[in-house]
């Protein structure tokens, strides 16, 4: 079972996340899938140079012992924080959308946004053709 390691699990997670992002219409599930994809990136980065015999990279290092590479461990900290920020902010925006449309269905929201944009344009058109009389003002 040596093939079940961080790298392969990361690939499987990425595939699951990508599939869910494309086939599920619910925005919240889409964001969960996005989180899965982001986590798979983090898992991949941290497991890419790992070996089961490695120990923690803390000084002093005893002789003849393999230590894990500390650099990816430092890097994933930033990646985790960034992904947290992205998920939090996008959830806020989904909340705003739900407040206005009472739905988390992606296609419905997209349709509503497009019709709203179209009616917005024609409303402006109405106000402008109505204000033609006031054209002579300075």
């Amino acid at each position, binding site marked *: 079972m040596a093939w079940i390691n961080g790298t392969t699990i990361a690939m499987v997670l990425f595939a699951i996340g990508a599939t869910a992002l494309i086939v599920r219409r619910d925005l919240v599930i889409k964001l969960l899938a996005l989180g899965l994809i982001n986590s798979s990136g983090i898992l991949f980065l941290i497991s890419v140079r790992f070996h089961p015999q490695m120990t923690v990279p803390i000084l002093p290092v005893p002789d003849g012992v393999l230590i894990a590479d500390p650099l990816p461990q430092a890097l994933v900290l930033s990646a985790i924080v960034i992904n947290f920020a992205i998920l939090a902010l996008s959830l806020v925006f989904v909340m705003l959308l739900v407040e206005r449309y009472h739905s988390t269905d992606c296609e419905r929201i997209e349709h509503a*946004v497009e019709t709203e944009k179209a009616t917005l344009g024609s409303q402006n058109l109405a106000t402008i053709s109505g204000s033609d009389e006031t054209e002579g003002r300075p």
Partner: protein
Amino acid sequence: MILALLPLIHIFLGMAAIAWKACARATLIIALLADIGLVALYFSPVSHVLSATAAGGWTEAIGIRLMLDSLALDFLLLTVLLEAAVLIYLWRQRLHPTFVLLLQFLIGAVMALVLSQDLFNIYVILELLTLVSFLLVAYDRRTFQIWASLKYLILASIGMSIFLIGVAIVYANVGSLGFAEIGVVVADNPQAGWIPLAAALLTAGVAVKAGILIFSLWLPDAHSAAPAAISAFLSALVIKMGVVVLIRLAHVFPLGPTLKILGTITGIGGAIYAMSSRDLKRMLAFHTLSQIGYLLIGMSVPEYGAESGVLAYAMAHGSFKALLFLAAGAAYDVVGSTDIGHLILERHRIPLRTRSALLLGTLAIVGLPPFDGYIAKAPLLAATHDWTSQIVLILLGIGTAASFAKLIPLFKGPYRRVGNDPAWESYVVLALPIILFLPIERALFGTAFTLPVMSWFLAVESIVIVAVGWLVYRIHRRLRVRPSERLFRLEPAIFALMIGFIAIYLVLRFL
């Protein structure tokens, strides 16, 4: 260490704007003056203080390297120019401190990105750019803005995850993340099995941010939904940050054929959509795609002089695209719509200065001789010798002219003095490099920047291209064909991103 000040000043001043709300506007001026001072240092006798450093006193192997090369300098100058123009544009408006904070973070992140020579640092800064522009696009909290920026965040986040996996593969095989070390290892063994996969992952990840058609399908919505000043920043500068990373990657990995294919698809696809778009801001956003195609094709050309052409074109595009977006915003403020037919109907109410700015931007973007669009396009046309790239560049020119021919009625009379454009000074700032591009570049870069612009053949060629573009517009108007915009919805966009990544990998592996 002075190099690190360039981005840091913006970050600190942005936070100062939140802490002292009354000084929010002043921080923008201080930041602009500091930037001008620091960039001017490069041209002064003490320019050695700006030499390359690893931030924080680490060794070069594990530290983050910052370097001010010609690529970085070019984009720093563009940033300072846009900063000045946008500051003047926003001057008479009420600025909320949060808006100032986000704007400062955006500029600081751009500066950090162009200086950075480290892959992971680039990942972090690209994510910062995503977050900040995500908030700025939806700053007015209109529903279509929220949806556009949510779409942007989801797509960009997928792209950045792909990029991170590429970073991991590079680190596993090189043991370092600096471009210099990666270049050495790749040049040592260019046939190594990991190179196509890593290059495909990194390119596909950045392509989402760089405005490449099958990857950045969020772009038309986000750039047309944002407030005018933000649109100008995003379209003229932030989108180029992906291009900067692509240029740096192309120095290290063998990306030539991939960039040519991507450039062709992006350029021609963007031009086709721009031709059938009836909304001014949306058309400008599609145009950003087609102009990125120019840059990519220029990057794929190995001949000497092509890269300076790419840099010049990126700079020129920054100036005229920002001018067009700012003027479109001013026109929207008067007319209340950005629909082109509607703007033409109401053209007598648009101030003359706004219309002149739109006219100048149009003349520059279609590449007519005295303006910077032509001067920057000429070296690209002159440096490409293979006929496929030549044909694509000419088709792109025709597409540009054909889509901007829609605006011609906007510039017809009556020329009555109506109202006053409050932001006309910002047009002057942007018009300077558009009209005086050649003298300015010569003064800044000296003889290193020699362009074959005085050739009569190129001048005639560009005029003929514009004329053909006008004919294509007349024909296209009769045909009334419009490509479907369903592709730009969220799910097709995610699907296209995945397909595009696999396509890039196959091209890199087998071509």
